[in-house]
């Protein structure tokens, strides 16, 4: 009985672990610029409007592009300012956008908040303490495009979670 339960546990663990299969070497760093909430990726004509139309970009940390399963994605990691009713928030985000070559348009397919702080209260806390990194991959079950996010808080061990591009290919949804 216990052997059966153990094998079942291992089988389930193995299945979950193997649902995400990393695809390496497809990420390419590119240069990019910004104005207000628009990002201009190098080599791309249409500008990318960030998911939060009210956000004001302060600094871009990194831009990349990746091609996977016939799709072209762009990512941008940036720091922005956001008004939240009662306070000004500084926000660190990573957004993933999908470029449609037929329509010549680029739209967000995921907007991930990595960290935030408010300038109210204790000024010694005016900095981001969380980092985010993403890895491209595919589902070993149906080959759908996937992402693995690694979130690192200070010196703690990274926490990871998985996202999968939905069937309509208009958003990366959480996989639990």
């Amino acid at each position, binding site marked *: 009985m216990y052997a059966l339960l153990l094998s079942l546990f291992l089988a389930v663990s193995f299945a979950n672990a193997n649902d995400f299969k990393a695809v390496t070497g497809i990420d390419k760093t590119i240069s990019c610029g910004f104005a207000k909430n628009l990002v201009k990726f190098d080599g791309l004509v249409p500008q990318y409007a960030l998911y*939060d139309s009210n956000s004001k970009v302060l600094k871009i940390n990194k831009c990349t592009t990746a091609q996977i399963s016939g799709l072209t994605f762009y990512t941008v990691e940036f720091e922005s300012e956001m008004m939240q009713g*009662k306070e000004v*928030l500084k926000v660190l985000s990573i957004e993933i956008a999908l470029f449609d070559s037929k329509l010549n348009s680029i739209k967000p397919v995921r907007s991930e*908040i990595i960290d*935030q702080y408010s300038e109210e*209260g204790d000024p010694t806390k005016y900095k981001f303490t969380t980092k985010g990194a993403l890895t491209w991959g595919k589902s070993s079950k149906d080959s759908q495009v996937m992402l693995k996010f690694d979130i690192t*808080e200070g010196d703690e061990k990274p926490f990871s979670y998985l996202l999968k591009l939905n069937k309509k290919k208009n958003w990366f949804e*959480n996989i*639990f």
Partner: protein
Amino acid sequence: MKSLKIPILILLLWPVSFALAQVTHSTISPFPTSKPIVRFRNTTDIWLRDANLKNPIGINEGSEISIDPAFLKKHLGTEHPTAEQLQQFMLNPSKYIDTETFRSTNGKQGYDYFIPVTIRTANAEPQSGKVALQYYSRRGQLDIIPPGEISPRTTQYTQTLIAQNSIPTTQAETCDSCGPSIIPNAPGNGQNLTDIRAALETGARTSSNALLSRYQEFARDFTARNGRVTKANAGMMKRKFIKELIEAFGQADAATILAALTGFAESPSRASSVSQVAEIAAVLKVIENRARNNYRTNSRVLRDIGITNPNPRLAVILADWQFSAWNDRDNMLPRILNLNPGSGDAESNRRVAMAFEAQQMMSAGQVQFMGRLNDTRLMHYHANYVYPPWARQGTRVAAIVKVNGVNVDLSAQRGPRHLFYSGVP
């Protein structure tokens, strides 16, 4: 030799046993006094610093704070001041102590009164240090909690402090149809408040609120299966939590639960049950109005879990950048997700139960919003210590909520307050 062994043994053991006694004593009772220590509770998250005002440690709202008796003895002449003496000290610190200039790293400068305290939080050893009595952004004010069991007398004493130190409203729109504003539990109203409070607390403890009971079971099970939520995993765990909540309760009841949690997280903490219900109800009213007006419903969270046609209240509560407790990296989020009857945070659990109760009372017509606060266009509030740009576009309204016949003026409460606006585009 044998006759000397025992006295030598005693001599050897004596310093060890004495040291152990000292350690034990300081762990259980940080202050060497046999009389009860007057305790405070912070009404918002604050920072505990060391004697040099460095090395800040975040302390959650609602923690127990005891002021150093030696400090009280020095400035108030006694280690056990009366309520009146404490009240005078907290409201007029410049009469007793000097300011300490707190210089920040980014050039901003704040002058605060720092007091030496010991703070007791759930499941942690007491920690000593200094806290600011009044922060430069006017957050973190301390409110007195009744020592010992809550009784009509101590509740009345707490309410008297509020009544005597209520801050006058400025430029608030006059509410013609509001009627006289009564400070809850002013002398003569004690019996009324006792009945209301007893009814609220009984309601919270019994299973009369079926949805609350089912939610508490869900929350306990969620924690048992997923472990403690941390700041690092809070964003992902929030999505899992909401997805499972919707699967377990359906969107409508999930919205009711999330509304209660939002009411708990967003409302200022109040010592009086009636005032607390009023504060929570006002937040719930804003949620209700926003849902009715389809105001700000873009939600990355719902999109992330594949919900494309959400219940309006659900969309409003989880809308991007609206109710801060649901931000992925807000300090309140792990607290909400970890909260369940077994989590050890009795005060927060009590307030969540009160939030469920407030919703029931609103449905039963036991809570009424007076004058312009009843306006269906009322969809904004902000804390009294900030002034957001949109406030200039709206009209500030008098904030009086009637709870079981007792008027509560939200703008006259002591400590952090919410100010309400209608007509903001």
